[in-house]
């Protein structure tokens, strides 16, 4: 009962908390918008890391593909924001169809490095090969080309915040559905023991490919939202050095959980926000934090919350037992 209630109310509570924060700290709205977008990005990575057992050092590549498909759409084809987001998701799907047959046959460590290579190739493509389309390092500016949307004009940051929250809410419910479905469980089973899954008659390759496609589509969705948020994109978005951010956020939040990615995004960006006010370079802090999280809290923030909830529940049970006696 409790769990069911949590699964229905959880996303609403999180979104409501975001709105409360938005009015408590009005000057933090860009930060909160970024938390929303980053959560979707981390959720995508969480599918690879938590459900399929693949660590990717190339998530920024998928993010930048999404951002660039939205940006190129705005710059050359039209101004409809919803269409741009759909274009980004479709491009993600096509990309995963092309890459999955090769990548999903690899062992985890090779997958990691192939993705790191993809990142490098991606930056090269956007910076040099398509320089006539993307303006290379100068970035592609398109804020003026975005058309107004009905009901809520998302071109303004304060409306875009609500738009991101709406997408986050939908993403949460779909993610939860995936987590509970037979598909979600079979993904986790392939992570635990692929040989046994093959033996049981499941097509491991197919399960992995679908999971990979969902992950890529979430990353490109987040990329398109980033592009709309900033109003321009440049190749830096896809740089290799940023790959650790999303991995760390996933770890901080708790790998393989539904709400972990949100807390990971919040925790990571919050920490970055706080540390960067008194330290321009924060690699040292990130490094120390990674090691502490890995060794001490390997179930992340969501694990801590669950443990806390478990303690409360146990305390309550004890009470009832005592009353019964």
């Amino acid at each position, binding site marked *: 009962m409790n769990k069911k209630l949590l699964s229905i109310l959880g996303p609403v509570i999180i979104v409501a908390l975001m709105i409360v924060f938005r009015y408590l700290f009005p000057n933090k709205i860009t930060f909160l918008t970024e938390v929303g977008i980053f959560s979707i990005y981390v959720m995508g990575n969480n599918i690879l890391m938590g459900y399929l057992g693949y660590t990717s050092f190339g998530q920024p590549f998928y993010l930048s593909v999404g951002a660039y498909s939205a940006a190129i759409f705005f710059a050359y084809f039209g101004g409809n924001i919803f269409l741009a987001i759909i274009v980004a998701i479709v491009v993600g799907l096509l990309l995963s169809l092309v890459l999955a047959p090769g990548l999903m046959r690899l062992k985890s460590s*090779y997958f990691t490095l192939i993705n*790191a*290579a993809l990142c490098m190739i991606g930056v090269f493509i956007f910076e040099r090969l398509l320089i006539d389309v993307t303006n290379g390092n100068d970035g592609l500016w398109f804020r003026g080309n975005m058309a107004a949307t009905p009901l809520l004009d998302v071109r303004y940051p304060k409306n875009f915040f609500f738009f991101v929250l709406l997408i986050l809410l939908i993403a949460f419910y779909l993610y939860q559905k995936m987590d509970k479905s037979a598909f979600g469980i079979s993904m986790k089973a392939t992570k635990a023991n692929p040989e046994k899954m093959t033996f049981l008659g499941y097509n491991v390759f197919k399960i992995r490919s679908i999971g990979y496609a969902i992950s890529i589509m979430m990353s490109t969705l987040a990329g398109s939202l980033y592009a709309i948020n900033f109003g321009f994109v440049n190749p830096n978005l896809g740089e290799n050095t940023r790959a650790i951010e999303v991995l760390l956020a996933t770890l901080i939040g708790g790998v393989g959980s539904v709400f972990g990615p949100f807390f990971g995004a919040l925790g990571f960006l919050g920490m970055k926000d706080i540390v960067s006010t008194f330290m321009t370079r924060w690699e040292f802090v990130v490094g120390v934090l990674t090691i502490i999280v890995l060794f001490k809290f390997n179930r992340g923030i969501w694990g801590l919350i669950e443990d806390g909830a478990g303690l409360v529940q146990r305390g309550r049970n004890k009470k009832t037992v005592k009353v019964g006696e």
Partner: protein
Amino acid sequence: MEIWITAIIYGLASSGILFLVSLALSIGYGLMRVVNMEAMVYYSFGAYVTYTIMSLTGSFILGALGGMLVGAGLGLLVETQLLRKIYNREMMFTMVVTFGVFMIGIGIIQFVWGLEPKPVASPISGIVKFFGGVQIPAYRLLIIVIAVIAYILIQLMMNKTIIGKALRAGIDNRENVEGLGVNINKIFTITFVVASAFAGLGGALNAPLVMVGPYMGFDMLLFAFITVILGGLGSIKGTMVAALILGQVINVGGTIWAPLATVGPFIVMFFTILIRPTGLFGKDI
């Protein structure tokens, strides 16, 4: 014509650096099943220590020795304090842990030496003239010679000494080797320290060729990984062959079209792995 011969010899020098730096990764990754990304910290520290000693004493040889020693010391510290605890964990875990160590290393470099890149002067300024007007800086030739010596030494250590034999046996069956009275932890540590020293030496040798900056390890990390992956895990010979190939891709490719120098190695690795997922000389792990 001269331009191609020059590119090929420059490529050999790049291969030398790549081989020295990748050795730590190759041994950690292929033999001990630990993805030691923090090897690039030894590389960066090697370069920085060379810079410091060279600006204090003016001697490059002292600097390179210092870089090697610091690399070895750091390797000893990290292996005994951290890696030993994670040998049996899954690869993903070791990868992220050592990446954390790598980040800490970058942070320490920023605190100690600051953000701006440091220049290191080339220790040998002579130019060797070959037939047909090919001119090669003597320093590049020195790098090739040192890399060849390093390859011979490490092969001798792995195949001829008791340490190498015990190491390979210990990887196959740890309990059995321990039962024979061999302290396998000590052997792991020795091998790791040797590999770290080579990474430090690689940093020291590369210092005059590149700008010594806090992020130099990042650039090298990917190239070193490509070398190890392309060569195949667990094979030092494979690492050497891959370093030779990549050195040519970087320099000859860069002569054909400049952007190939940065992106060429990635393209080579991408297609090699898709066609042959274990690398050129790798065994299936």
